[in-house]
C-alpha cells in the first residue's frame, strides 16, 4: 500500500553526501594519475605503447628544443581501461581525487617532465563569456537538457544517478528539463553519430541564448573508443561549440557534479 511505501522511505536514514566530500571525488572512475617521482623514460614509453586510445603520448617536439621529454595525458581521450596503471610499476595509479571536470579543452591535458620527474604546471584557461552571463543572470538556478548524441548509455546511467538520494542534484537548484527550449545548459554525451548530428544541431539551435554546452565522457570530449569509425562524426565540438568538458568513461556522478558547478563558477 502507498502508506507502507512512504513509511519505509521516511524511516530510512539519510544517505546524502556532503558537498565537501563530493567535489573533486573520483572514486570508481578508474582515471589515472602519475606519481611523478617514480616516472622514468622506460615506463613512459611502455604506458604510451599500452594506451589503446592514445590518451598517453610523449612530446617529441619538446625534446628537440630543450632535450627534455614530456609525458602527456589527455584525460579527454582516456577510457580508464587502466592498462597503463597495470604495467607502470607503480608510477601510475587509479586516482580517487580528480578535478579536471568542467574545464576547457586544453585543461584536460596534463604533462610531466620525465627527466625532472615533476608535473609541468599550466595556467587555467579563462571562463567563457556565456558562463559569465548565465552566472550573473541566474546564479546557480540552472536548467539542464541532456542530449544523447550517440552514447553507449553509460554516461546516461551516471547522469540519472545524479538525481538519486546520495547526490540529489536538486539541492543545488539544478534541474533536468524536458525540452532544449527550457534549458540553460546542454549536457551532451556520446561520440556524435552520423545519424544524430542533425538532431544535435537542431537541439542546440532550439536552446535560447545565453546557453552553455558541456561535453560529457571520453566519447563526448574526444570520440573515445569510437574515434575513427565510419558511422561517427566526432566529438561534440565537431558539431556545436562547447564551453566545458567532463572526461571519464563514464564520469562518476561526483565528477559530473564537480564539472557542472565548475563550468558555472569558472574556476
Amino acid at each position: 500500500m502507498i502508506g507502507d511505501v512512504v513509511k519505509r522511505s521516511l524511516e530510512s536514514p539519510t544517505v546524502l553526501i556532503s558537498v565537501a566530500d563530493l567535489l573533486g571525488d573520483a572514486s570508481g572512475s578508474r582515471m589515472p594519475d602519475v606519481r611523478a617521482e617514480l616516472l622514468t623514460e622506460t615506463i613512459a614509453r611502455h604506458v604510451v605503447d599500452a594506451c589503446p586510445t592514445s590518451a598517453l603520448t610523449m612530446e617529441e617536439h619538446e625534446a628537440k628544443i630543450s632535450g627534455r621529454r614530456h609525458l602527456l595525458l589527455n584525460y579527454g581521450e582516456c577510457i580508464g581501461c587502466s592498462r597503463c596503471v597495470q604495467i607502470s610499476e607503480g608510477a601510475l595509479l587509479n586516482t580517487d581525487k580528480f578535478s579536471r571536470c568542467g574545464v576547457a579543452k586544453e585543461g584536460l591535458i596534463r604533462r610531466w617532465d620525465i627527466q625532472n620527474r615533476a608535473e609541468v604546471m599550466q595556467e587555467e584557461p579563462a571562463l567563457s563569456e556565456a558562463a559569465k552571463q548565465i552566472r550573473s543572470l541566474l546564479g546557480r538556478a540552472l536548467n539542464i537538457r541532456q542530449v544523447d548524441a550517440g552514447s553507449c548509455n553509460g554516461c546516461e546511467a551516471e547522469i540519472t544517478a545524479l538525481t538519486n538520494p546520495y547526490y540529489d542534484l536538486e539541492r543545488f537548484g539544478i534541474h533536468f528539463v524536458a525540452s532544449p527550449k527550457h534549458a540553460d545548459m546542454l549536457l551532451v554525451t556520446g561520440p556524435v553519430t552520423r545519424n544524430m548530428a542533425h538532431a544535435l544541431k537542431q537541439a542546440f539551435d532550439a536552446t535560447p541564448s545565453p546557453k552553455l554546452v558541456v561535453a560529457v565522457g571520453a566519447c563526448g570530449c574526444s570520440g573515445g573508443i569510437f574515434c575513427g569509425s565510419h558511422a561517427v562524426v566526432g566529438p561534440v565540438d565537431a558539431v556545436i561549440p562547447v564551453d566545458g568538458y567532463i572526461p571519464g568513461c563514464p564520469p562518476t556522478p561526483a565528477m559530473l557534479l564537480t564539472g557542472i558547478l565548475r563550468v558555472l563558477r569558472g574556476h
Partner: protein
Amino acid sequence: MTTTAYGASQSTFHQAVELLRAGNARLVSLFGSVNDDGTRRVHYIIDVDDCEYRILSSAVTGPVPSLTAIIPAAAWYERELHDQYGIECQGHPDPRPLMLHENWPPDIHPMVEDALHVPLAQGEYRFLEVRGEGVCEVPVGPVHAGIIEPGHFRFSVVGDTVLHLELRHFYTHKGTEKLFEKTPAMNGAMIAESVSGDNCFAHAVAYCQAVENAYEVSVPPKAQAIRLIGLELERMMAHIADVGALCGDVGFAVPAAYNSRIKEALLRASTRFFRTRFWRGIAVPGGVTHNLSPENARELSGIVTSAAEDFAQMARSILDTPSVQNRFETTGILGREAARSLAVVGPAARASGLKLDVRHDHPYGLYREIAIDVPGYHYGDVMARARIRIDETAVSRRLICDTLERLPNGPICVPLPSSANPEGVSAVESPRGELLYWVKLREGRIARCHIKSPSFQNWPALPLAMPGNIIADFPLINKSFNLSYSGCDR
C-alpha cells in the same frame, strides 16, 4: 554449450528453414562475414530444443532467399545484412535500409568497403501510413524528454488509442562491429563494454568467452566466480532500477527514489571492492583483472543481502498498492505467439510464457555447476514484466551469496595463445536477455565480431504490445521492456 558447424553449402538456407519449421527451434542470429579470399558468407545461428546452438554458414555469390516471410524474427537481421554487406534477401517484405539512415548513399556497404568520409546524402524515409477517419500521427524523438537514449517512435492514433506504432532506430549506430575488426583480441573487451554501457559487464564477459572458446582456453575457477558475481550484480542493479522506474512512470515517485538508492548502494559496493562502479575493465580474455579477498567477500555478501531484502520488502509494498496494480495489469500485453514469432528473449520472453534463460539452457562458466530457477509468467503485461524482475533479483542474490561463500582460490587469469586462427561463439544471459558474441580471429586480432544483442531482438516486439493501449501508457510499456538503444544500434 553444444555447437554444430555445417560446412559451406548452397542448401544452408533450406537447412535453416527446415530446422526452424520443424518444431522447437528459435532463430538466434543471422549475419554476414567476409572470407579470407574476399568472398562473402552468411551465418544462421539457431537454438534447437532450447539446448543446442547450431551454426549454419554458407558462402554466397548473389542474393539469398529471405527468411522473414516464414520467420518474422529474421526481418531486422536481413535488413542489417543488406546494409552491412550488400547481400540482398530476395522476397523480404520490408527491404528499407535499417542502420544507414538517409544521410548515407544507398550503394554503401560499410563492412565490405571503405565508408570513411562518405559525403552526406539526402533521401526520404517513408513510414507506414495509417489512413481512416480521425487517424492522427504523433512523431516522438529522436531527442526525448528524459535522460534517455535517442530513437524515433511514430504513433498512429485515434483519440488516445494507439492503432499502430512504427519504430525508427539506429540513431546511435556507431559502426561498432566494423570497429572491432583488426583490434587486438586482448583489447576487444573495451569496445564490448561500450556497446551498451548499463550492461557493460555482460557484454565484456560474452566477448571474452567467445575469444576463450575460440582458443579453447579454460578460465580459472576463481575468475569464473568473480564473473558470476559481476553478472548477477549487474542484473540486480538493472532490475531494481527498472522496478523503480516503472513506479516513476505511473507517478509513484517515492519507490522510484528509494530503488535508485538501493542501486547506488550496490554501485558504491562495486567501487569499494572492485574500484569500478559498472565493472568496466574487470573482464579480459583469459580471466579477470581484479581479485577479491575472503574478508571483502563476506562484506560484499552482507551488502548484497541487505540490498536484496530492502528491495524485496519495498517491492511487496509496491505490488500491494491498488493504483499500481490498476496501471500495471493488462497494460501492454505481448502475447506468447507474438513473442515466439519474433524470437523475443530475456525478461520480456519469460513474462509472456517463454521460459528462455541462457544460464539454464546453455550454461557457461560457473553456471554449469549451478541449478538456476527460471521464473515465468504468461500474462505478458507490464505487471508480469515487473514481477519477473522482482523474482529474478531474489535469484541473483542467492547466486551471489552462494558464490561468495564458496569462493575458490587460485589464479584469476591465464594467458591466451595467439598463433591459431579460430572462430568462437558464446552467449550470456544479460539483464535484458540472450546476448551472443561470434568472433573470428586472425593472428591475435579480431577479423570479425558479430553481436546479437537482446535489444535488437526485442525492439520489434514493442509495437505489438501497443495497439489498443492509450498513448499516455507508452512510456510505462516501453520502460517495462527497458531495451537499450545503443545495444540495438551498435
